[in-house]
């Protein structure tokens, strides 16, 4: 697979198409489609299972074709129904109980918090990470090497031991249980800096050189020339940052954990679904769909900025 797939794919780009290359590209597409289904299937099952009752999630996870009528997870006497009353082979009767379970008064507030914090942090990260990444990739100044190793080193810290020290620091700084505490803490990250750094290193330097010859300053070059060229990397950064914050449990717990008004969806949904052997899987999955679906849409929206083969020549001069 390692070697054949790219060569199959690449052969198909030959301008004059032979019958063989057409067959090969059809095979390649079929292979891709099959692979795509494997990748998506668990999410389809997540959605399907989110409409099942707790018992059926654990016992009949593979049924994924909904019937038309919806049912309740409890019968007239308030007892839970049997998994087989809901599932028959690959078919199941959907229930909305899981979604009802997470539909509490505070849900809109939590959703707003999640969206607000994710957007603000992502915007700040895009700016701060690309500035730092550019400095580390292109500029020459004393202390750069040390900073690079510090940034790399930050990634190597096992986060678990930092939880309590961070809490103590944030408390000293008066940042606990505030939006700005969360935003400031996460406004830049080592991964994003390194991502931008390696991207800036991989693009040709001639364009910047030319601009310099024309007398443009470094700051102008960065904003006017380099950042627009970095669209693919900024897209990747946006996706990662948004996803990371959308699903952020631990930072949110440490910083916002004291006030349920400020909870994001991961915190709020965790309280709702229960813990240990008391976990309500229908609630888990309904929550998971609520949090995953926007991520999928955002990815689909942003991935269009991965446009193949940007032409740098047009930017010259």
């Amino acid at each position, binding site marked *: 697979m390692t070697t054949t797939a790219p060569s199959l794919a690449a052969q198909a780009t030959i301008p004059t198409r032979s019958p063989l290359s057409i067959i090969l590209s059809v095979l390649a597409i079929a292979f891709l489609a099959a692979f795509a289904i494997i990748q998506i299937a668990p999410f389809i099952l997540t959605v399907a299972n989110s409409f099942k009752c*707790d*018992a059926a999630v*654990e*016992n009949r996870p593979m049924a994924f074709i909904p019937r038309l009528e919806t049912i309740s997870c409890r019968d007239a006497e308030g*007892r*839970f*129904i*049997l998994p*087989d009353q809901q599932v028959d082979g690959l078919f199941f009767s959907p229930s909305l109980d899981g979604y009802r*379970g997470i539909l509490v008064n505070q849900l809109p507030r939590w959703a707003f918090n999640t969206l607000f914090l994710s957007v603000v942090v992502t915007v700040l990260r895009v700016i701060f990470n690309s500035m730092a990444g550019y400095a580390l990739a292109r500029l020459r100044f004393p202390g750069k090497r040390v900073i690079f190793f510090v940034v790399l080193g930050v990634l190597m810290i096992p986060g678990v031991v930092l*939880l*309590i020290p961070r*809490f*103590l620091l944030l*408390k000293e700084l008066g940042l606990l*249980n505030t939006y700005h505490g969360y935003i400031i803490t996460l406004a830049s990250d080592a991964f994003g800096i390194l991502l931008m750094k390696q991207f800036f290193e991989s693009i040709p330097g001639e364009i910047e050189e030319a601009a310099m010859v024309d007398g443009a300053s470094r700051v102008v070059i960065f904003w006017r020339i380099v950042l627009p060229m970095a669209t693919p990397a900024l897209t990747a950064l946006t996706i990662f940052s948004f996803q990371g914050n959308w699903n952020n*449990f*631990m930072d949110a*717990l*440490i910083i916002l*954990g*004291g*006030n*349920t*008004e400020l*909870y994001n969806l*991961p*915190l*709020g949904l*965790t*309280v*709702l*679904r*229960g*813990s*240990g*052997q*008391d976990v*309500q899987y229908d*609630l888990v999955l309904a929550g998971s769909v609520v949090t995953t679906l926007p991520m999928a849409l955002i990815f689909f929206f942003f991935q269009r900025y991965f446009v193949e083969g940007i032409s740098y020549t047009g930017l010259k001069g």
Partner: protein
Amino acid sequence: MMNKKRLFVGALALALSMTGLSSAQDRVVLRVWTGSSSPVENEFKEKQIAAFEAANPNIDVDLLISPDYGTQIRAAFASGDYPEVFTVGQFDFPQWQADGLLAIGTDKIEDAEGIYEGLRAAFTADGELYCAPKDFSTLALLYNIDAFEAAGLALPDETWTWEDMAAAAEALTKDGMVGFSAAADKFRWMAFFYANGAQLFDDEGKVAFDSPEAIEALEFYQSFVANGHGKLPSDLNSGWNGEAFGKGAAAMTIEGNWAIGYLRDTYPQLNWGVTEIPLAPNGGRGTLTFTECWAVSSRAQGALADAAWKLVNFLTGPNDDGAKAVAEAGFGVMPARAEFGDLWLSTVGEEYSAFVKGAEYAVAPIFPLGFADFDAAVNEATTLVMTLEESAEDALREAADVARDINGE
């Protein structure tokens, strides 16, 4: 935002009362933290708190049900600024007590004698009772009625012995079912350990973990796996005993009363019963108990401390909204007060009486402070024995040697 405002008001109220300007209108704000359990139980706690606030108009309760209680409360402890009232699990108690986080409750907890002795023991240090147990669980023997009847066996009852259990497991192992699901968990086999009269330490305080009684108990637990009449839940495609038992992959298992709700909800068609853990060869009984208490912060002073104990007594006392409400709610856990055992049974069903009976002789399996390495060694020993890599005797001796080393023997 709410928190800060309330805190401020609380502090102001405190300041006013100290300067002698207090009036009957003064409000006290209690911060109360606990972890999230089942959705039903979370709702129950909220209702309890609401009832308390209604009964005590001058006390405001700021309840926080944490998504990750262990992490959150530890961070708060470290900072020195932690809630006035919070829950403490039995395994955390020795450390938290030693760290000076808990106020002594001996004179504050009302009608403490009504609480099972085994539960009080779990939260007692240096002769002082620190906090009030709110509810608890015990282990018992779960059996699949259909499997017993199909095999033509009489259903187990409280007269069962280890021998009876072993014989039944053999007879039940057929048609894709094994007799017994045996988790490699020290908090299962140690029920047999205590039943057989074994102890962690002997009367002189010396480590007795590898006594002949202890070895016999673990050998018995291992024997199911060794002779093929039992399997680990992971070998039955299950995450835990309850799942293996619910699926019908094992005809018997040892689990706690938390399994009632799980089996009812997840495997409603399962026809099962429960009885006490079988009698040891010496006729001894044993089971383990797991419990949690409501504690008051050692830093709460004056009016705040009074309000905090008032709340704790309200939540755990014999009143309508305390232990009695736990019994009437009828979810997994049992009320910590013996007088409501029958009420709990009438809510969940008389057939579960074995769990309540166990409370009379149950032991809370807590290792002393400083024995973390021993704890790890016992886990290791349990795994090695249950995967048949080591004999019970060798494994227990190795673990006991760790304890002796810590104990300075």
